[in-house]
């Protein structure tokens, strides 16, 4: 494996038991400075692709490697950021409690995390701009704040690859832009893979985009043409290019 690769998928097929394959012959390379968006219609296999990368699913055929090893073996080096809606808000926990969970594998026993772990967690919260919320109960944070807290949890675990699943779902426009700015800033140090249904968001901010529709095709974002999108989504799709001053609907 190339030393600058964070992750790779080679000839990957995946089928759930007694179903036809939902991913076919996927080849994907994630470089060590990558900012890769994964887009595709509902049911295209985006989530399956992500779970394969995380090592939560095993491919039916082919290999998935992260940092040159099977992803199952390096799970703790991957920072997984789920949709904020997947975290149970009724759990009595503060933002800091949630972030500390990123360090669970380093301190699995006992009632509390030591000072060293708390400092790591607070530093991660500072990086994503939620250090003021450390004592705030989980149920009293906005969607954007919770999403940042989950990113801090991944960073607190000293993740070497960030994988985000639809982080902008249920987040308002302003918070969404801030989240993208944050990801661009973090990307200076760490490769990032983000699954999104929002093609315009990915095309405006990301370096490369992987279009998933059973198979995977990868484009630099500037090559994302209406024809390619139509081929992916099977119909007319609007793409807004934010890099120009006038909004241009393609």
């Amino acid at each position, binding site marked *: 494996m190339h030393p600058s690769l964070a992750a790779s998928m080679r000839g990957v097929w995946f089928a759930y038991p007694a179903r036809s394959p939902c991913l076919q012959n996927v080849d994907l390379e994630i470089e060590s400075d990558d900012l890769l968006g994964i887009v595709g219609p509902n049911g295209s296999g985006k989530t399956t692709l992500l779970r394969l990368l995380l090592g939560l699913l095993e491919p039916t055929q082919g290999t998935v490697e992260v940092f040159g090893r099977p992803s199952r073996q390096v799970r703790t080096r991957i920072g997984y950021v789920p949709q904020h809606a997947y975290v149970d808000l009724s759990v009595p926990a503060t933002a800091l409690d949630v972030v500390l*969970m990123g360090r669970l594998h380093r301190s699995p026993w006992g009632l509390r995390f030591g000072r060293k772990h708390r400092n790591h967690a607070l530093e991660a919260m500072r990086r994503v701009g939620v250090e003021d919320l450390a004592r705030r109960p989980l149920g*009293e944070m906005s969607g954007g704040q919770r999403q940042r807290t989950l990113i801090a949890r991944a960073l607190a675990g000293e993740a070497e690859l960030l994988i985000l699943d639809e982080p902008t779902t249920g987040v308002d426009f302003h918070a969404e832009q801030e989240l993208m700015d944050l990801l661009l800033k973090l990307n200076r140090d760490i490769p990032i893979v983000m699954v999104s249904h929002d093609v315009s968001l990915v095309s405006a901010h990301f370096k490369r985009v992987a279009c998933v529709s059973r198979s995977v095709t990868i484009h630099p974002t500037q090559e994302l043409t209406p024809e390619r999108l139509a081929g992916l989504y099977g119909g007319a799709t609007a793409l807004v290019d934010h890099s120009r001053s006038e909004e241009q609907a393609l």
Partner: protein
Amino acid sequence: MQFFADLTENRFLVSGLAAGLMASLASGIVGPYVVTRRLVFLAGAIAHIALGGIGASIYLAYRWPEVFGSMDPLWGATAASVGSAIVLAWLGQRAGERLDTVIGALWSAGMALGILLIKLTPGYHSELMSYLFGNLALVHSDHLRLLGLLDAIVVLVVVLFHKRFLAVCLDEEQARMQGYSVLATDTVLLVLIALTVITLTQVVGLILVIAMLSLPAATVARLTPRLIWVVVGSVGLCSLLVTVPRIAVYGSPISPEPAIVLSAVAVYLVSLVVPRVRSRRTAGETRSRPKIQRT
């Protein structure tokens, strides 16, 4: 008060109080995890299946008195509840949507088996009532030793596993990414619930165990945003709930066991009416709290 005057003379009053406080320690610690992980229904099943173990103990003592004659039926209850906890944890991962029906089946099967075996045993089993409805007046030193052992196990395991329990409550997927099996963690938690059920048997009875495992924790959870403080607070509240009503109804025709449970219900209902305590920082803000169901 008459209760305190009699306390020095009647050692059963002392052992009843001690049993209540020892059960409070286990149920106060385990209750918050039961509520947070939404295991109240499973805990109810474990408690009722324990009756099967009691029935089996009584029957075995009748059939093979030389082997099982001296065994306290609480040991049979312990074996049944721990065994059912392990099976239920496994089913929780397997049964999917039908889980509640499967739990219902085990719940009633356990009880039915208990009743069947007791009916097969000749004689009138007055002690059965004390397992079903609790009996604080008849706690003897063997029971206290068993309670002490169970308390020690509960405290030790929670001190070791607290962070993993919290991780699984918050986000199962993330717990898996950290390398911890959700099934193994749930199994440990359900076995702790099984042990706690046994500690509560004499205090409120198997039928009412569920109240002590859920209501004090749910009450305290409205006051503090951190699980560890919910645990501390619920031990305190459980201790008050098993002693104050006991003392209050002493000398009256009211049994202490249902009085304890009704007090727990009353305190919980009051906590629902009093607005939830919020952190100072957000107290002035008006916000909508989105209710998002996990899928």
